[in-house]
């Protein structure tokens, strides 16, 4: 048991470190370090532009999408090299937020199901950040129950005509392409009538409306489709096999190992270290310590859990299922952490302005953003189901809609 | 909004208080007030004997089973009078534990489904504590799923022959009679083939075996039935209608408003008030205060929730569903409190000997007993289902066994 790199790993790390030192946009480092959940923005610069520039620079030098094959814009690196890169990239990694869906979900799906010509054409600009991709799965009627989606695609000659609505699409407003899951046969059971496509987000008939979130920000969108035409050549996988294609996408989402989930602990610990209460520094208060300790061991538990997965990668093994706990633990934790940081501020905790609030309002922003974390990318309840079923081997939920034709599934809970 | 009695209530309270002051077994007061979960017994006397004597005395004074009609041994009192009595009876109420199932579940079921003759014969002795009743519902294969029970009753002339096993029967070893639910038809869906009886626990073929619990105590029993004969006259309700009869029983169990529910809070508050740690009194420590405050508001929340139900009763209204939260809140809370009390004692918290101070030993017993609070009389999970379904109106669980003949329901998971 050790934390040392192998000689190859050490060489890779040294190279990455040197390149980052020479090329990273240092002027933003402080600001990026201080950013936290619900608050990742730069003063005096558009974070999207800064991010695109950094991604392009990385791509030019061969540091983008490290684990992808070279011919598609990657480096052909090993999984562990990718992790080392992430460690070295540090705070600059926060700039990749807008590419995560493209790199983590759309790219791998294209790689698995698109034709060779499409891969050569679309993947390199995706890797270099010149083109941004989004993922169009969730719908008003299909959240946790993704396969409950209702957006129709109907065959018309060599094209498909799409009508319907998607929701919770991150970055749709700045995306160039999207992967889109549609219903092509409503007369069969819900998992059996789906088909996957990719499309140009500038296609006529695509309309994007930002969603104003509970925290006031707008990171997500509704996307409306009205008679949108998609050539059959942009179909991914067989007709009506979309559910299996989407599993590839989602599997890749959940495999993102080493991606540090935000727990709020470092922020709270720093805050308590500097905060003075009536009777002395907050960090000397026993109650504060007791709470901090419980969160500290969760944060460190997550950190070392991900190191165990990295170790498995490093040995060329498939990581175990442990990593599935990350978002579940971090989601409710960050909510609790933020609420406690406000509690420590007393009545003033309600003030959210950067000038008035302690720690420039960071915890207020965190509190308001945190509920989203427990919902997006799989709710806490879905995550617990996944752990119970795939890790512990417990039976799946009873599915009353399993063998029912999609158009016979009830759409309203009562009357 | 006020906490005052109406004039009638005040008069009742004065009368009850005076009678209790004159008649209660004062010699046990101190011991009873110190008893807590997992630790209810008297040093020198058998608590069941003392309980029986107190119940008999109450019955003779007209204070037993207050809300029952007079002809069945009660007082015909109003629900609010029953609550006032409980408030005044205070710690002596802990002596009524052996009679609670009889009074709260068996009695009301006999009252609803027994013949007039049976009611006059059995209920007064039940009320006076001379005869103790138990309830024989749970089985190894039917815990939360009561209707999954397998004990068979088969008709033979004017009698029924019972074979099978019950479990978790409180007080079966000192009970005279029992309320027994059986399966009389295994070929129909599970809720439809049940029939209810009452029986003499001294009947031939009834065998009572105590269960040793996780905390080392023995409060419950297994009861085995081998060719036990029950006359058809002791059937309660129609053949095949036992499930509906049992709902009366269980409804009454859950209606027990104002019943004292142990939360452990008074004990932990007292303990923290007196405990000295190396940095001073535990109660001065902020971490301790934060925990105590969290529990204090749960305890007071439960107390005032039950006051709200009492108020509804006082106005002659039916109490709302709020009271169903009690056991769910108290069970987990007891477990957490016991654990924290031990934490405060450091390594010595693991010691349980009689030589250790009473104040500390009680939390170890509480810790070991608390898991049963989260299970007995409805698990936490069942209680959450009840709140979600009956209070919030959410749909029930999907019942895969609903229309399946009982003998076709799977009995093994893998």
């Amino acid at each position, binding site marked *: *048991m*050790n934390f040392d790199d192998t000689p190859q*790993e050490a060489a890779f790390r040294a190279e990455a470190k040197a390149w980052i030192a020479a090329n990273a946009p240092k002027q933003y480092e402080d600001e990026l370090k201080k950013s936290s959940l619900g608050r990742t923005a730069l003063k005096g610069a558009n974070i999207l532009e800064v991010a695109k520039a950094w991604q392009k620079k990385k791509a030019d030098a061969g540091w983008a999408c490290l684990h992808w094959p070279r011919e598609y814009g990657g480096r052909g690196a090993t999984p562990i090299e990718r992790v080392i890169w992430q460690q070295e990239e540090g705070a600059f990694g926060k700039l990749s937020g807008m590419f995560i869906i493209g790199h983590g979900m759309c790219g791998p799906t294209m790689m698995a199901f698109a034709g060779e010509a499409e891969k050569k054409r679309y993947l390199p600009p995706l890797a270099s950040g010149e083109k941004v991709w989004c993922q169009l799965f969730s719908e008003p009627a299909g959240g946790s129950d993704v396969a409950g989606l209702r957006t129709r695609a109907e065959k018309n000659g060599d094209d498909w005509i799409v009508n319907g609505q998607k929701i919770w699409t991150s970055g749709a407003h700045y995306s160039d392409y999207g992967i889109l899951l549609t219903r092509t046969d409503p007369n069969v059971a819900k998992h059996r009538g789906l088909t996957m496509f990719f499309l140009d987000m500038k296609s006529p008939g695509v309309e994007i409306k930002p969603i104003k979130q509970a925290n006031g920000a707008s990171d997500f969108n509704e996307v409306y489709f009205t008679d949108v035409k998609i050539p059959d050549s942009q179909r991914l996988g067989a007709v009506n096999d979309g559910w299996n294609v989407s599993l590839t996408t989602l599997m890749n989402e959940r495999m993102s190992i080493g991606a540090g989930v935000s727990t709020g602990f470092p922020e709270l*610990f720093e805050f308590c*270290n500097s905060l003075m209460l009536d009777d002395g520094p907050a960090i000397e208060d*026993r109650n504060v310590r*007791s709470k901090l*300790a*419980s969160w*500290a*061991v*969760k944060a*460190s*538990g997550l950190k*070392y*859990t991900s190191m*165990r997965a990295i*170790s498995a990668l490093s*040995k060329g093994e498939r990581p175990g299922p442990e990593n599935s*706990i990350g978002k579940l*633990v971090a989601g409710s934790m960050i909510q609790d952490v933020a609420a406690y940081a406000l509690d420590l501020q007393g009545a003033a905790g309600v003030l959210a302005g950067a000038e008035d609030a302690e720690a420039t309002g960071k915890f207020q922003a965190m509190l308001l953003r945190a509920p989203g974390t427990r919902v997006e990318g799989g709710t806490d*309840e879905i995550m*617990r189901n996944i*752990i*119970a*079923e795939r890790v*512990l*081997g*417990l*039976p799946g939920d009873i599915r009353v809609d399993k063998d029912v034709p999609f158009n016979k599934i009830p759409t309203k809970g009562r009357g | 909004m006020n906490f005052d009695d109406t004039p009638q209530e005040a008069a009742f309270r004065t009368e009850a208080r005076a009678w209790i002051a004159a008649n209660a077994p004062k010699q046990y007061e101190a011991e009873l007030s110190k008893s807590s979960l997992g630790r209810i017994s008297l040093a020198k006397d058998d608590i069941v004997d003392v309980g029986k004597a107190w119940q008999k005395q109450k019955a003779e004074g007209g204070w037993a089973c207050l809300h029952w009609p007079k002809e069945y041994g009660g007082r015909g009192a109003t629900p609010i009078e029953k609550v006032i009595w409980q408030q005044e009876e205070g710690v002596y109420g802990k002596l009524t534990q052996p009679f609670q199932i009889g009074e709260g579940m068996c009695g009301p079921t006999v009252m609803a489904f027994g013949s007039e003759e049976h009611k006059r014969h059995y209920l007064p002795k039940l009320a006076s504590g001379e005869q103790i009743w138990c309830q024989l519902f749970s089985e190894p*294969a039917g815990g939360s*799923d009561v209707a*999954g029970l397998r004990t068979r009753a088969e008709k033979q002339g004017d009698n029924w022959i019972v074979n099978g096993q019950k479990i*978790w029967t409180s007080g079966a070893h000192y009970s005279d009679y029992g309320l027994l639910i059986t399966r009389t038809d295994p070929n129909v869906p599970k809720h439809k083939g049940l029939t209810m009886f009452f029986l003499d626990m001294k009947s031939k073929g009834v065998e009572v075996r105590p*269960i*040793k*619990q996780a905390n080392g105590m023995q409060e419950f029993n297994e009861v085995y039935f081998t060719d036990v004969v029950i006359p058809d006259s002791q059937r309660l309700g129609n053949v095949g209608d036992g499930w509906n009869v049992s709902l009366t029983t269980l409804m009454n169990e859950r209606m027990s408003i104002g019943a004292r529910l142990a939360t452990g809070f008074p004990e932990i508050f007292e303990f923290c008030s007196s405990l000295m740690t190396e940095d001073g009194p535990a109660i001065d420590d902020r971490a301790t205060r934060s925990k105590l405050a969290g529990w204090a508001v749960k305890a007071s929340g439960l107390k005032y929730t039950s006051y709200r139900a009492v108020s509804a009763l006082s106005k002659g209204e039916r109490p709302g569903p709020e009271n169903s939260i009690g056991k769910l809140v108290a069970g987990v809370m007891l*477990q957490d409190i016991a654990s924290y009390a*031990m934490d*405060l004692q*450091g*390594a*010595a*918290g*693991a*010691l349980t*000997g009689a030589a250790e101070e009473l104040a500390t030993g009680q939390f170890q017993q509480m*810790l070991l007993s608390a898991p*049963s609070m989260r*299970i007995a009389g409805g*698990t936490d*999970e069942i209680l959450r*289902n009840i709140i979600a379904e009956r209070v919030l109106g959410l749909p029930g*669980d999907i019942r*895969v066994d609903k229309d399946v003949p009982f003998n076709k*329901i799977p*009995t*093994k*998971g*893998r």
Partner: protein
Amino acid sequence: MNFDFSDEQKQMRDEARKFLAEKCPPKAVRAVLDGHASYDKELWKGLAEMGFLGVAIPEEFGGAGAGHLELCVIAEEMGRALAPVPFSSTVYLAAEAILLAGSAAQKKKWLPAIASGEAIGTLALFEGKGNPSPDGIKLAASGGSLNGVKKPVPDGAIADFAVVTGRTGSTGRDGDISLFLVDLKAGGVEAKALTSLDPSRGQAELTFRNCKAEPLGAAGEGWSILTQVLDRAAVLMAFEQVGGADRALEMGRDYALDRIAFGRPIGSFQAVKHMLADMYVSATLARSNCYYGAWALSTNASELPEAAAAARISATQAFQHCAKNNIQVHGGMGFTWEFDCHMYYRRANATALGLGSLSYWEDALIDRMRKKNAA
């Protein structure tokens, strides 16, 4: 990076698990729990023969000379099996104290005896209620003679020797405390067995009356050595706790798969499966914290104090959580003496207290993180 046990270590784990499955089934734990024996002597002998008692003791002192990672592996298995033997007191506390501070002669006298199973050792630290603190140590030590009472002492009634904390000064500083090594069979000590939450592991009161004792480590260094011993023991005990937590989780999972209610396995109800998923989460967090503790322990890293506290807290929480909810998943049967659930519940709550309670370690963790942060 290789943040995992090696194949050899995993093989040792399998070997230990197999050995304990055979020699330490629940029946063996019950024999001690029910008071038929003070500990499982046969098992103790077997553990010595397998080389598990001396796994971290150097070969020159009769041990296997493997190391602390190997000891962590064994500790986890001991916790899984609820082994009713004085392993933690002898190996994590007494042996570690001697390894850290013992003279050559002391090592030579006691370590081989520990490795061979001939000597049971313990640490006599607590004096009634309270957590570890120099102020809590009143036992008078002067002129090589001890006077005072220690309680609870784990396995104190069956131990052959004890490491004892004693007061050698009254300046109010840590330097007032020194450690002593006492041969409990040489007279001057009276042992009285105490009843505890977990009767499968013994607790005792030791009364010292003009008891002869030899110093362990330098005078006035007692508190400093003790702190290190407790940190090392915290990591090892955390592995025991994680072993117990994992087993309790497995028991709950198995029961949820087998038990039918309402016509379905109870594990198909979300209320039950989510409870089990949450148990898995705490057990996983604890295991990962323990691995870090193991690394820090085995390399004597400067991170050990922080890593030990984190492992201890996380494992205490996980074992308590899993043991408690294992009973809940089992329903009424989980509350019977006959089912094994309560043995894990008892052990979980007893091990949560043995080296100082959760509150104590929480306070210690933040104190240590703060100091590191300031440095």
